[in-house]
C-alpha cells in the first residue's frame, strides 16, 4: 500500500494547535458549565477560549525534554556543591539568613502555587489554558523540591532551616506570605491567575528573583544561584503567560475590564507588601550588595512596569492604585522592615544585626534622602546599646494590619516620621490597616478578611501554646511558650547574629577560632 511519506516535520504552530485544539472536545451528555462550574461566578465573560494561546507554544514533548535537561544540570551542581563543601563558600555567615527567610517564606509558596495551578488547570474551559496551567503546576512543584534539596545542604551546618513547613503555618512574620497565597487560592480561577500569573509573576517577580539570585552569585552561594536560575527559566514562561492571560481576558469582553482593574489594584498591593521582606534582604541581609531595593524598584517597577501599563492603556487599564505610594516608599521600605525584625529578633527564626560601617556608608550613598536623616541614628543607637550589653529587643507584641498582616510599621506617604493608621468598622467590629490600599481591599470584601488569622490576636486568644501548657501556672512565660509552640531552638535559631552559633561555627570552619 502506498503511503505518502510526510515531507517535513510539523512546525511549532501546527504542533501546538494539535495539542491544544485537536485533542479537546465539547461534552455532549453533560453541559459544559457543569463540567467547568467555577468559570462563571466571578463575572468574567469568555466567548472564545481558542483565543488563549501560549506564545512560547510549548508542547508536552518539548516541555519534558527541556525540563529534564534543566534538572540534570541543576542536580549535577548540587552534587558538586555537597562534595566540595559548598556551605563554606559564602561571603559571610550573615548571608545564610537570606536563605532561611527564603525557605521559610518563599518555598512554601512555590508548593501552594503548584496546588493552585493544578486546581485552575482542571477548571478552565479552554484546553490551551488548562495545558499552560498544568505545565506551570509541575514547574512550581519542581521549584519547591529543588529549593528543599538545595537548602538541605545548608541545613546540615546552619540553624533556622530545620522546620520551615511547620513554621510557615504558625510563625508571626510568615503569616504575611502565607495569607497572601491563601487569599489567592480561595478566590475564583480568574482572580487567581490575575493575582499570581500577572500581578505576582509578571509585575513583581523580577524584584524577587533577579536581584536575589544575582546577590546569591555575588555572595558565593552556588547552590542558590543554580536553583534560582533553574526556576527563573520557567518563570520567564510564567511571566509571558501572565501577560497573555490579561490580554485574553480583556479582549474577550469590555465588561471584564473593571473587574480586572480592581484585581490588579488589589494584587499589586498584596504582592508589593510581601516584597517588603525582599527589600530588607537586598539592603541589609546581603553582606556583599548587588543593588539597592530603590534601584531594583526603579528598574523593574518604574521602568519595566511603566512600559507594561503604558501598553495596557489601550484596553482602558491604568497603573494599579498603590503604584505611586510604592514609588514614594522606595526610600523607606527596607529600613523600616529591617528595624522591625531587629525589634522582634528574639521571636524570629533568623538572625538580625545592625549594619556595619561599610554597610551604613553604602546605605547613605544609595539612600541620600532618608538614611542619614532618619535611620542611621536609630541603628547607631542600637549599636551603642548592644556594645554596652543592652541589645534592644521589643518585648511587646505589635499591632498588625488586618489585610497584609504586617506589623503597622509603615509611615504616612506624606510624612516618614508618622505611622500610617487606617481603620474600618464592619458589623460592630473594628479593623485596622497599614495603608489606604489595605483598607480598600478589606472594605471591598470584609467577609473575607474578618477571617484573618492574625498571629498576635491568636497568641492573645491562647491558641499558640502547646497542648498541656497551663497559662495560669505561676511561672508561665507566654512568649517563651509561643516560641516552644513554633518549635524554635531557643538561643540557636533566634537573637542577634553577634554571638550566634552560626557566627562561631563559620569562624571556626575558616580557622579563625571561636
Amino acid at each position: 500500500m502506498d503511503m505518502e511519506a510526510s515531507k517535513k516535520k510539523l512546525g511549532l504552530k501546527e504542533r501546538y494547535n494539535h495539542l491544544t485544539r485537536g485533542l479537546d472536545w465539547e461534552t455532549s451528555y453533560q453541559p459544559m458549565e457543569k463540567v467547568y462550574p467555577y468559570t462563571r461566578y466571578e463575572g468574567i465573560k469568555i466567548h472564545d477560549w481558542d483565543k488563549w494561546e501560549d506564545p512560547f507554544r510549548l508542547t508536552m514533548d518539548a516541555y519534558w525534554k527541556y525540563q529534564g535537561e534543566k534538572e540534570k544540570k541543576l542536580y549535577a551542581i548540587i552534587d558538586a556543591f555537597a562534595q566540595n563543601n559548598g556551605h563554606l563558600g559564602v561571603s559571610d555567615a550573615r548571608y545564610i539568613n537570606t536563605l532561611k527567610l527564603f525557605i521559610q517564606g518563599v518555598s512554601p509558596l512555590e508548593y501552594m502555587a503548584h496546588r493552585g495551578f493544578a486546581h485552575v488547570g482542571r477548571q478552565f474551559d479552554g484546553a490551551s489554558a488548562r495545558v499552560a496551567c498544568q505545565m506551570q503546576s509541575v514547574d512550581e512543584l519542581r521549584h519547591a523540591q529543588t529549593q528543599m534539596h538545595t537548602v538541605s545542604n545548608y541545613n546540615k551546618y546552619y540553624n533556622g532551616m530545620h522546620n520551615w513547613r511547620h513554621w510557615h503555618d504558625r510563625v508571626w512574620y510568615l503569616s504575611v506570605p502565607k495569607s497572601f497565597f491563601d487569599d489567592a487560592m480561595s478566590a475564583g480561577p480568574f482572580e487567581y491567575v490575575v493575582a499570581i500569573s500577572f500581578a505576582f509573576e509578571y509585575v513583581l517577580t523580577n524584584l524577587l528573583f533577579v536581584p536575589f539570585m544575582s546577590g546569591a552569585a555575588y555572595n558565593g552561594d552556588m547552590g542558590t544561584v543554580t536553583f534560582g536560575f533553574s526556576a527563573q527559566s520557567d518563570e520567564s514562561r510564567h511571566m509571558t503567560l501572565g501577560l497573555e492571560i490579561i490580554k485574553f481576558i480583556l479582549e474577550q469582553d469590555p465588561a471584564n475590564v473593571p473587574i480586572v482593574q480592581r484585581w490588579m489594584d488589589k494584587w499589586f498591593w498584596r504582592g508589593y507588601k510581601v516584597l517588603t521582606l525582599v527589600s530588607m534582604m537586598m539592603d541589609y541581609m546581603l553582606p556583599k550588595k548587588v543593588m539597592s531595593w530603590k534601584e531594583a524598584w526603579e528598574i523593574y517597577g518604574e521602568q519595566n512596569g511603566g512600559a507594561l501599563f503604558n501598553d495596557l492603556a489601550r484596553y482602558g487599564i491604568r497603573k494599579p492604585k498603590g503604584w505611586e505610594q510604592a514609588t514614594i516608599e522606595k526610600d523607606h521600605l527596607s529600613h523600616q522592615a529591617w528595624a522591625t525584625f531587629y525589634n522582634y529578633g528574639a521571636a524570629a527564626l533568623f538572625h538580625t544585626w545592625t549594619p556595619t560601617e561599610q554597610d551604613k556608608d553604602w546605605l547613605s550613598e544609595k539612600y541620600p534622602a532618608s538614611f542619614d536623616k532618619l535611620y542611621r541614628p536609630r541603628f547607631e543607637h542600637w549599636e551603642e546599646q548592644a556594645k554596652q550589653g543592652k541589645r534592644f529587643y521589643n518585648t511587646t507584641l505589635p499591632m498588625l494590619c488586618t489585610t497584609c498582616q504586617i506589623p503597622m510599621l509603615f509611615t504616612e506617604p506624606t510624612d516618614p516620621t508618622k505611622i500610617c493608621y487606617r481603620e474600618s468598622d464592619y458589623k460592630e467590629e473594628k479593623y485596622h490597616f497599614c495603608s489606604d490600599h489595605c483598607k480598600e481591599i478589606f472594605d471591598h470584601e470584609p467577609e473575607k478578611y474578618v477571617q484573618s488569622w492574625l498571629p498576635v490576636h491568636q497568641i492573645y486568644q491562647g491558641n499558640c501554646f502547646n497542648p498541656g501548657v497551663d497559662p495560669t501556672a505561676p511561672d508561665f512565660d507566654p512568649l517563651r511558650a509561643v516560641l516552644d509552640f513554633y518549635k524554635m531552638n531557643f538561643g540557636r535559631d533566634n537573637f542577634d547574629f553577634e554571638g550566634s552559633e552560626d557566627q562561631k561555627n563559620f569562624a571556626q570552619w575558616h580557622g579563625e577560632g571561636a
Partner: protein
Amino acid sequence: MSNVFIAFQANEDSRPVIEAILEDNPGAVSNASPAMVRIDCEGQLVIRRESIEARVGRDFDLQEIQLNLITLTGHLDEDDDQLTLSWKQ
C-alpha cells in the same frame, strides 16, 4: 516607545545567543551583572535562529534558549525561525 528586555544566565550556552541578538538588533544594549546578562532594546527585539546557528555550527531549536533564560518583558511571539519581543505602544 518603551524598552523591552531579555536576560540570560552568563554562560557558554548563552554567549552565541547574546552575540546574535546584539548583531541582529542594532539598538540593543547589553548589561552584565553577577551571573547574568540583560539586553535592553527600544520597542522591539528579535532573536533569529539562523544567526545563532551560524555561530554554533549546528541546528539550533529556538526553544533551547529557555534553558538559560532568566527573564523578559514585552509581548512575545515565537515560531520555528524567530522569537520577537515587542511593545505595541
